[in-house]
């Protein structure tokens, strides 16, 4: 599934933990606190668990928004946009000529 993760976290340590987890699960950093990418359902569950255990629910918020390629295609971006092919896993590998 395609997943947006958007967070607002006060403490640096917690924020770093969540951002590293997102990157480890194969999400791409779209903005400073916004991630997007393809994750398996089990990985999504795991990410939710980690977040639940780490954040302070009184002050922090994390949004997990499942989406689809159809919605990404319909989205409209102004300014610095992300590499759509990379995020949607359409580029599986890059070859370099030596």
């Amino acid at each position, binding site marked *: 599934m395609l997943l947006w993760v958007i967070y607002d976290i006060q403490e640096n340590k917690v924020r770093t933990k969540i951002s590293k987890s997102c990157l480890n699960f194969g999400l791409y950093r779209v903005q400073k606190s916004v991630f997007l990418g393809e994750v*398996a*359902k*089990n*990985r999504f*569950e*795991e990410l939710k*668990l*980690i977040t639940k*255990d780490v954040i302070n629910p009184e002050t922090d918020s994390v949004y997990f928004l499942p989406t689809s390629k159809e919605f990404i295609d319909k989205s409209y971006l102004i300014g610095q946009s992300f590499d759509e092919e990379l995020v949607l896993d359409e580029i599986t590998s890059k070859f370099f000529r030596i």
Partner: protein
Amino acid sequence: MKLPQNSSEFNEYSYFVTPSDMIEFTYCRRYTYFMKVLNILQHEEKRYNVRKGREIHKIRESQNIQYIRKKIPMVSKEINVNLISEKYKIRGIIDEILTMNDNTLSPLDYKFTNYNSKTYKTHKIQSTMYSLMIEDLYNKPVNYGYIIYCKDKNVLKEIKISEKLRTETLESINSYMEVLKGKYPEATKYERRCLDCCYKNICPR
């Protein structure tokens, strides 16, 4: 630790199946081949879900030991019972063995996952394996197995240990032993299971 009844015949080199092994085997037979025959580890302890589940099991061992569940017609319980059945070649640690009102026994297992609309076959087979072990070592009948899904909320499910389930489980154990001897098994027919499999890069589906 409870030894088999005729411990004089105990052979430390014979292989015993654990219900956890059987869960993986039922999910996909290639799992067992890669892990037990080729010795490629899956490192499940690195997964946060697994670590969290183990923590919860530890808490259950120490907290509220005397608790008698009202939803189950039970009298008493034993916690964390380690059993080895020579007859069925099964070994394992049962989370709880419940003594019921009608003097039968029942295994109870905690699962760190959410219940979604049905009890999976893997869980049914695990419960049946526990039941076979209990019947062998306690000489008392087992009619039902219980599973508690304890991720977001506690959902209790009852499994009828039928004859059909028992024969199915024993057949599975036999096929498991064949794979252990080196037989290359068929992969699961459900391709969705491969999406999150740790062996997907080396499995020639």
